[in-house]
């Protein structure tokens, strides 16, 4: 593309936007709405994923060891557990340590002070790598000889995995639907612009203009609309996210539902918005203009 032409395409793109301002405004609004909905769900997915990762880091369960097992048997058992798939760190907790830990949580209740060590069992604290395979890992450990029981909050882990998967799936479905809607709106805007200029297009074609020469100003128009929508959507998204995050904190939101700071996410959000806006704008315009090139 010649520099000469690039300037012409940009000028024509801007001129076209203002020549049907209302439709352009509607297209920008639609892109803003789509990007914000898309962005909100994506940010929700990112946060749920973040929470899950945090949970995964802390996630462990207890496997209780047969009371008759000797020290060497326990060491062998630990080795067996370590060799299992999806098992991270394995820590041995004696019944005395377990009692001490238990008492720490009940310091004010003198009732437990004289509790004999034998009440509790020796145990292994086992860290799980992938939370999605939590139950499977617990069952594999429980199947080993020497493990007589276990304590695991599997429901919480599985619940989180289910929420993450649902939010991710929903985010993708919404992204797909909203991208299609945005493409449709941009296409219509371009189609209107092209219809208004169909005589000009026919003249251009008769003078020997290539398809690219006719198409580029419309693509530039779509790009500008897409980028304008993306920038507006970014600032609105920032405001909405900050407001929701603040409201959660104000209402005594637990650690579980504290949203990530937007400052950690803004670059990624801006890049994704700009790329999506530009892609929607350019593709929508490119598709719409095809029919008018058949001269």
């Amino acid at each position: 593309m010649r520099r000469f032409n690039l300037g012409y395409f940009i000028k024509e793109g801007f001129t076209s936007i203002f020549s049907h301002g209302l439709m352009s405004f509607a297209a920008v609004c639609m892109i803003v709405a789509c990007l914000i909905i898309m962005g909100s769900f994506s940010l929700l997915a990112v946060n749920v994923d973040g929470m899950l990762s945090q949970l995964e880091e802390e996630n462990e369960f207890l496997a209780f060891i047969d009371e008759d097992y000797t020290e060497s048997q326990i060491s062998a058992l630990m080795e067996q557990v370590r060799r299992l798939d999806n098992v991270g760190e394995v820590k041995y907790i004696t019944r005395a340590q377990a009692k001490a830990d238990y008492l720490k949580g009940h310091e004010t209740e003198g009732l437990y002070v004289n509790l004999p060590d034998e009440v509790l069992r020796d145990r292994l604290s086992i860290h799980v790598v992938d939370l999605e395979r939590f139950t499977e890992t617990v069952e594999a450990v429980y199947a080993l000889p020497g493990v007589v029981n276990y304590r695991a909050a599997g429901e919480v882990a599985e619940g989180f995995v289910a929420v993450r998967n649902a939010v991710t799936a929903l985010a993708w479905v919404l992204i797909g639907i909203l991208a299609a809607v945005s493409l449709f709106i941009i296409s219509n805007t371009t189609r209107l612009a092209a219809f208004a200029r169909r005589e000009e297009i026919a003249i251009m074609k008769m003078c020997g203009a290539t398809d690219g020469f006719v198409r580029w100003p419309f693509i530039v128009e779509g790009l500008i609309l897409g980028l304008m929508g993306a920038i507006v959507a970014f600032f609105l998204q920032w405001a909405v996210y900050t407001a929701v995050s603040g409201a959660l904190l104000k209402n005594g939101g637990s650690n579980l539902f504290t949203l990530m700071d937007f400052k950690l996410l803004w670059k990624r959000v801006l890049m994704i918005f700009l790329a999506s806006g530009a892609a929607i704008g350019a593709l929508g315009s490119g598709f719409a203009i095809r029919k008018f090139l058949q001269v």
Partner: protein
Amino acid sequence: MIRLIDVHKEYDNGTKALKGINLRIDDGEFAFLVGPSGSGKSTIIKLLTGEISASQGRVIVNGYNLNNIRRWQIPHMRRTLGIIFQDFRLIEKKTVQGNLEFAMRTVGASGREMRKRIPYVLDLVGLDSKGDAYPNEMSGGEQQRVAIARALVNNPKMIIADEPTGNLDPRRSLEIMTLLERINAMGTTMLVVTHERDLVNRFSKRVVAIKDGELIRDGQGGYYRA
């Protein structure tokens, strides 16, 4: 140069617009293509400009074989043609100068080329003082001159004029035809489609007559002498 060799055209609705047309127009020639409405004149124009393709036969325009031309080559073929329409087809919101710049820009001309070529062409068609005028401020004859200037501005090998005087009074029609004759004398091949018998008869040029999709006469001077 135009060559139509045994060209047939049948539209999707079954209409047979052309039935075995053979025609050769050499470089530098001036030819009228005449015939009544529905005779196939417009179909020939559309074939020559690459808007439609022949159902059968060969179409060659300025060295481009339109039977197997690729889509990307069509703009290049069209740059060898200048096309003039009955309804002028000027862009109303652009000045005369703007209309010509528009035509030059579509083929990638530079600003310097435009500044050099446009005054020359406007002078040639007698509109050198009308560069800043808008089409709706001009008479029909002047608007057609602008259309001729636009057709000429990219220096085509051939001009195809489709009923160029259809919207003009007899005096303006004569002026336009005289202008086209003058342009032809400068070396540009001219194919003028018309059904104005009197006008054709005033010029002693080659006349190709078609009727019902068939070529019924190809000779020098006169409209129909069948």
